[in-house]
């Protein structure tokens, strides 16, 4: 049983560009949450998707947007990249009915903005 998978592993972008990160949840999970982890910091909640809708959002600007597909996979899009967007982007999945419990994280996508 594959756990949470994310692609790509690493990404280098230039300031002002746009980026799309992808996540496939663990089998049996229907909810995907995205987190940003700056170097040396704890993960910060970006937003969460369930039934293809954004259900909750953290304190991130509208440059951060997302999507969930019918197969529960998800994308995170960041527009107009800033140097400060450089971070490890983590995807977590679980079952909506389980609430916050048993959230499994993927290995992350390391985004570097130059």
């Amino acid at each position, binding site marked *: 049983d594959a756990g*949470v998978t994310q692609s790509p592993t690493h990404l280098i972008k230039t300031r002002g560009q746009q980026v799309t990160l992808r996540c496939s949840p663990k089998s049996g999970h229907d*909810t995907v*949450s995205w*987190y940003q982890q700056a170097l*040396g*910091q*704890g*993960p*910060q*909640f970006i937003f*969460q998707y369930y039934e293809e809708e954004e*259900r*909750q959002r*953290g304190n991130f600007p509208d440059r951060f947007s997302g999507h969930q597909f019918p197969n529960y996979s998800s994308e995170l899009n960041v527009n107009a990249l800033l140097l400060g967007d450089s971070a490890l982007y*983590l995807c*977590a999945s*679980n079952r*909506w*009915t*389980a*609430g*916050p*419990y*048993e*959230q*499994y*994280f*993927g*290995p*992350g996508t390391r985004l570097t903005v130059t």
Partner: protein
Amino acid sequence: QQQVKQSPQSLIVQKGGISIINCAYENTAFDYFPWYQQFPGKGPALLIAIRPDVSEKKEGRFTISFNKSAKQFSLHIMDSQPGDSATYFCAASEDGGATNKLIFGTGTLLAVQP
């Protein structure tokens, strides 16, 4: 307040010793407190979690102690091993089953010396 304060920032323990990491919170709506372990280049992995209806939970060498009145909880790693060397994050979730959002502490880098 949606903040979880974690200490210490780093910790060095001898093999076989006890590692103790502490967290404090302000939001009394928090009712789920997980601990995650993260190795370099990997996503956080759920280690152990507790709800405030119990004061202690033990799983193998890992124990969570919870003090609801003080709004504090801690992770104890008994018989610490070099393989336990990692970054540990406490987290909390608000509103119980109504949300999947996790609020993370800033992390503790644990080094277990052989």
